[in-house]
């Protein structure tokens, strides 16, 4: 499995466990949109590589979040992935949070 998903009353925490977010892992990541709650946090802590196929999968989550009024955040994003997300304007829709900001949600 590429993902480990923790859920609470109004949050979903998606740990991406693959080191690559690419064409091979994209389908499973896009399918996670079914499990998004009011606040959904994507943990990129294990991710070493993201390409456009992976970004496409993430954009499917962004589209679903927008349609359903959910909020999406990213944590543990490397400097290079942040650069790439900025290139494609992803951070407007999936801002990067610090883990200490997310912890109160998932450990109230």
């Amino acid at each position, binding site marked *: 499995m590429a993902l480990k998903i923790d859920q609470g009353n109004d949050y979903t925490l998606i740990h991406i466990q693959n080191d690559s977010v690419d064409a*091979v892992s994209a389908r499973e990541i896009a399918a996670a949109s079914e499990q998004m709650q009011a606040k959904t946090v994507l943990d990129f802590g294990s991710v070493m*590589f993201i*390409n456009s196929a992976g970004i496409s999968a993430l954009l499917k989550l962004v589209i679903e979040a927008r349609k359903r009024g959910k909020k999406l955040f990213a944590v543990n994003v490397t400097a290079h992935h942040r650069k790439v997300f900025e290139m*494609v304007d992803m951070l407007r*829709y999936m801002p990067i949070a610090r883990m200490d900001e997310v912890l109160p949600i998932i450990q109230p």
Partner: protein
Amino acid sequence: MATSGVAVDTPLNDIEINIPSDMVFERVVRESALVVAKHLGFSEDRVADLQLAVSEAVTNAIEHGNRSELRVKVGVKFLMTPDKLAVQVTDKGQWPAAQEVLQSTPAEWNLEDRLDHDLTRGMGIFLIQKLVDNVELRSDERGTQFTMWFNLDKGLNNVGNVNIELQGPEKLDIFS
């Protein structure tokens, strides 16, 4: 970044890889790019740029060039000269309006418009043009050759360039 043709100087060294047209093998090229970039002393950020650009070019070659036909190979050459690294990716597809495709790729990415139309693919060439110093696309009845250049006079490894730190943004209000 320019898109005009630039001759590949006589390489000091070159590496050639041929992979079946299956996305599973794209990673083989990406890992090779990592080895080449580290050998050349690329900074951490520049290594990641190279890996992403190579991944995008190989993905295009597999999906659009060779139509994911497993028996048709994608060829990748890393050509190292004293001042440049060139990466040539070849496939058997044809792209009649090759140069026009490069020149018509938008300089800016309109994600809002794409989200409104549920368009999530088609950013590979855009990313490549953001990441490399020069590209050239040649296509004829024999196939397509896509070449990317990385200048070696920038992004070489030094303390100032290395950044493996995990970054966070300004404080977010995620409780609202």
